[in-house]
């Protein structure tokens, strides 16, 4: 029997190498293998024969691993990365492409800067178009990486072309509020446009949508890390160059900052694609730290405003702060959801998250109340319509999340349903951003 134990141990080590099969799966498969061996033993086979037959029946590891990866989309994500590593073994496939797109984005940023300088500092076309100078490169990078066909490329380019036309052909009046709103909403809309090439065109797949959510979260983390590193580098450069002359450092900043910020968008995306497993360990930790903190903060805020009343407290600035807070909370919830193993039963973290969502929901209702009162007193403006719409979109999402979380926590539905709700809701965010970009300006006569 010792011989078989040794063989089983070897088999276990071998199976453990499959990226999509985790420890518990191996236990389950091993129990199966042992049952099978025991039965074959009883039927009169020798231990060796029994082991061989049992392993053969289990199926070959590649197929098995692929099947596991297909089911566990979170692990499939790992699988994709592993394939990325294989690609990297071929010379200059992964990073070279990313570098080319990053450099192109950097060069365009430089051209834009020079053009802006020529036309006197900060011209009006700069802000609304900012994302249009960078995100097409990200979309192009993914379209190339996912090897889209001609139709795929055309569909990738279409939203960018339409957005470019809409933003630049609308006759905004000077200092128009709608123009500023477009500048804020266009990046969001275009980010969703990047989702199309990112998913390789399969935008109906809920699993791929969750991958895109995951990608967005990881991308943000990498971008912040790069920005911090870049900040340290620039700070030190400034200190070193100071003796030569104060203008020198400023010159360097002018050149490095725009290109660096634009190029980092692509580099961060490439890092997410190829170095996934590094952040993979970070994502659950980050959500575990920040979900409870946000839950406490939101509960305290909701309770405080519920007691003191909100009528006067919400002025215009505070309203936008609250909107930003709600967006961040929703982002955190989505990211936590994408990092969660869906088959796990409801735990403490899910309760904490429900608390955060409930707090956000209460705040959102109060913000909406204050906003409706403002609109009743002062009438509709582009800003108020945009804020009202955003809050409504958030309210419906948060209410749905809270309701489904409750049902999940009481064991009435599977976590899957909660995921479905979020992935089905994603297009609504994109649609709302697109509405603000395309419909709101003409509605208010471009004021």
């Amino acid at each position, binding site marked *: 029997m010792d011989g078989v134990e040794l063989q089983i141990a070897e088999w276990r080590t071998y199976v453990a190498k499959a990226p999509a099969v985790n420890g518990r799966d191996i236990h389950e498969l091993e129990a199966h293998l042992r049952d099978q061996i025991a039965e074959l033993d009883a039927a009169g086979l020798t231990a060796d024969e029994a082991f061989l037959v049992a392993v053969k029946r289990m199926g070959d590891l590649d197929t098995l691993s692929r099947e596991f990866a297909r*089911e566990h989309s979170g692990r499939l994500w790992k699988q994709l990365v592993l394939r990325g590593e294989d690609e990297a073994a071929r010379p200059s496939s992964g990073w070279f492409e990313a570098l080319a797109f990053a450099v192109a984005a950097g060069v365009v940023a430089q051209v834009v800067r020079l053009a802006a300088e020529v036309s006197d500092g900060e011209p009006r076309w700069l802000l609304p178009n900012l994302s249009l100078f960078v995100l097409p490169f990200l979309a192009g990078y993914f379209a190339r990486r996912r090897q889209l066909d001609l139709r795929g490329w055309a569909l990738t380019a279409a939203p960018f072309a339409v957005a470019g036309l809409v933003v630049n052909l609308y006759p905004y009046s000077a200092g128009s509020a709608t123009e500023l709103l477009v500048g804020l909403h266009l990046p969001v809309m275009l980010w969703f446009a990047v989702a199309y090439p990112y998913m390789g065109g399969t935008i109906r797949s809920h699993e791929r949508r969750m991958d895109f959510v995951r990608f967005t979260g990881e991308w943000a983390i990498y971008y912040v890390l790069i920005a911090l590193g870049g900040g340290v580098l620039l700070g030190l450069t400034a200190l070193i160059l100071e003796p030569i002359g104060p203008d020198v450092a400023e010159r360097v900043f002018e050149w490095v900052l725009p290109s660096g910020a634009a190029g980092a968008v692509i580099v961060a995306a490439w890092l997410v694609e190829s170095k996934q497993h590094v952040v993979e360990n970070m994502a659950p930790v980050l959500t575990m730290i920040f979900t409870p903190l946000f839950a406490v903060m939101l509960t305290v805020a909701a309770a405080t405003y519920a007691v003191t009343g909100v009528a006067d407290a919400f002025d215009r600035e505070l309203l936008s702060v609250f909107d930003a807070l709600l967006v961040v909370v929703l982002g955190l919830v989505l990211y936590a959801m994408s990092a969660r193993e869906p088959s796990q039963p409801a735990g403490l973290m899910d309760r904490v998250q429900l608390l955060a969502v409930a707090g956000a929901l209460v705040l959102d209702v109060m913000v909406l109340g204050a906003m409706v009162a403002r609109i009743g007193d002062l009438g509709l403006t582009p800003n108020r319509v945009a804020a009202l719409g955003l809050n409504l979109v958030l309210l419906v999402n948060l209410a749905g999340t809270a309701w489904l979380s409750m049902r999940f926590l009481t064991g009435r539905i599977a976590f899957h349903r909660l995921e479905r709700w979020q992935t089905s809701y994603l297009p609504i965010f994109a649609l709302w951003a697109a509405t603000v970009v395309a419909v709101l300006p003409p509605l208010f006569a471009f004021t």
Partner: protein
Amino acid sequence: MHINKDLVAASATPLVLAILAEGESYGYAILKRVRQLSGSELEWTDGMLYPLLHRLSRLGYVTTEWRTPPEGRRRRYYAITEDGRTALAEQQRQWATVTRALGDVWRDSGRLPMALGEA
């Protein structure tokens, strides 16, 4: 008789749900039951059962629990849920329609008159 791979794959979910509707079970026992039901005609690769079970669990059709029975090794048990029974009923309706349609057309064409009654 060799049963087509697509057919095996398509029948896997209703089979597993139906077996679990008989009572909770674990992977190895489910496979044995499949062999017994099909007279060993349905050839499954053993390992493939587990991703399927995990999918059913994610969809909320089954619940799972690790347990060590008094005599035996630690195993992961699966039990069907209400959602699972609903899904099974839906699958039954679909399969009944398919087999009825095939039965009718084959009876009309006068070939394979009995084979389908057993399937």
